């Protein structure tokens, strides 16, 4: 069969078609490229020629200040990364538990369901910064625990708030798996827990991966808010440097570092969801 294929030359019509599609393709690439460049140049010229550009450039994009601030802001960012690491684990565990609690069926579980529902209602509504104050300054005030570092309480506050969001995402995923999947799993003799673990959750997580990644990236930025407790993270370090140099450039540096931090995750999530789509959905042109 394959020999035939090597031997067969595409017809003139097909060659024409391919050439046409190639031309069409090249044309759209050129158009989009040119329009992007024109757009960028127009914006650039507008900014650079604005009356206040000199001052803004000086106080926000001062290279010397950036270089000077880099070590301390970088050190602060390392704290952000550590907090992010523990917060992610905490959110995954707590959100999963809450989501399961909310999806339990039967009147016996009413208190658990109500508790989970109340939790998500409360912490999705409450601004993160207020949770940070309550947890960061309130709980230590109870004098129940020994002195813990500020970033510890910051992490707890992040976990508290983000678990509420992520639990709802998990729940949406669990409920989006068609009931027939549960039936099929239970019919094989799998327990409720095993059905959840082996059949429902894998499908649920796949469906909500983009939403989860979105929440993760949002949290990546909000890690910077632990600075309000006084922990010296990238934002706090930038604040200190800004005060010292009387120049806003360290903030710009911190902002760029946060963007760089989120880039790998954004790309990984794009790649991962693309792979899932290719694997599980039959491809078609439309």
């Amino acid at each position: 069969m394959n020999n035939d294929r090597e031997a067969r030359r595409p017809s003139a019509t097909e060659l024409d078609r391919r050439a046409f599609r190639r031309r069409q393709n090249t044309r759209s690439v050129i158009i989009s490229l040119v329009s992007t460049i024109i757009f960028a140049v127009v914006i650039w010229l507008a900014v650079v020629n604005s009356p206040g550009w000199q001052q803004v450039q000086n106080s926000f994009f001062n290279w010397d200040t950036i270089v000077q601030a880099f070590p301390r802001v970088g050190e602060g960012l390392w704290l952000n990364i550590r907090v992010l690491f523990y917060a992610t684990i905490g959110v995954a565990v707590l959100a999963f538990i809450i989501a399961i609690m909310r999806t339990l069926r039967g009147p016996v579980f009413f208190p658990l369901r109500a508790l989970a529902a109340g939790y998500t209602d409360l912490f999705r509504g409450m601004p993160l910064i207020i949770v940070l104050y309550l947890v960061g300054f309130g709980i230590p005030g109870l004098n129940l625990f020994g002195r813990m570092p500020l970033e510890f309480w910051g992490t707890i506050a992040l976990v508290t708030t983000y678990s509420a969001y992520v639990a709802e995402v998990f729940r949406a995923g669990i409920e989006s798996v068609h009931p027939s999947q549960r039936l099929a799993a239970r019919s094989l003799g799998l327990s409720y827990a095993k059905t959840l673990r082996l059949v429902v959750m894998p499908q649920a997580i796949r469906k909500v991966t983009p939403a989860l990644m979105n929440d993760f990236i949002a949290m990546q930025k909000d890690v910077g808010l632990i600075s309000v407790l006084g922990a010296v993270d990238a934002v706090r370090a930038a604040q200190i440097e800004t005060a010292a140099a009387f120049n806003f450039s360290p903030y710009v540096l911190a902002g760029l570092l946060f963007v760089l931090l989120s880039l790998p995750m954004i790309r990984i999530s794009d790649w991962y969801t693309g792979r899932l789509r290719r694997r599980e959905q039959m491809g078609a042109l439309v």
Partner: protein
Amino acid sequence: MTPQANTSRRGSEPAVVRVENVYKSFGDTDVLRGITLAIDHHEVVALIGKSGSGKSTLLRCINLLEQVDDGQIFLDDKELTDPLVKQDDVRSHIGIVFQQYNLFPHMTVVDNVALANRHVFKKGKHEARDEARALLERIGLGDKANEYPDRLSGGQQQRAAIVRAIATNPRVLLLDEVTSALDPELVGEVLDLIRELKQTGVTIVMATHEMNFARDVADRVAFLDDGVILEQGPAKQVLTTPREARTREYLKRFNAAH
């Protein structure tokens, strides 16, 4: 173009669908290897052949759901495989029904049927709904019009899917093994509907494993083997006295299994 390809055509009026020397492969698998076929107005053509012989791919190519690797397809002498052609426009004049019904689960049956008329052919909501309801009424699904597809049996869903495909009066109706996912006792109602459609003059190309039905209803049967049409002709002739050894073999094995 092979000269034998069009010998079974009846009239001299232009074919509704003309497939010329179409090739299609997926990766290393050559699925279609030079298919030439013409379908006349009001004609019912059955494509038979074992799984993987290319029946479904051919139907999907005609509806532009797959891009052909070579060759041309015409609908009423307009080339569909021309890259300049408006694909949505073409598809709106060709109906296709899938093995798995593919009704939209979030709409009632009547809204499924009315969808294309409302949003592609820009008919008013009430007009499209009334037409859809009348069609469903005619095939005995009037009482299910306001139900959601999940509440219907497989046979009812497939009938609704067929009605959805013909609601816009397409030039040709493509049926891709529409009874293969059904319980045997539900197959009959779907085949009856197709038989009725033939009587009203709908042009049909169907990939099927229902040999008896093909013999009864199809004007012409084409046997696909390994990506080519090995043999075609009047339904009775191909199915009872096939010329080719491989057709005979396929039919023998098929009859033994059923």
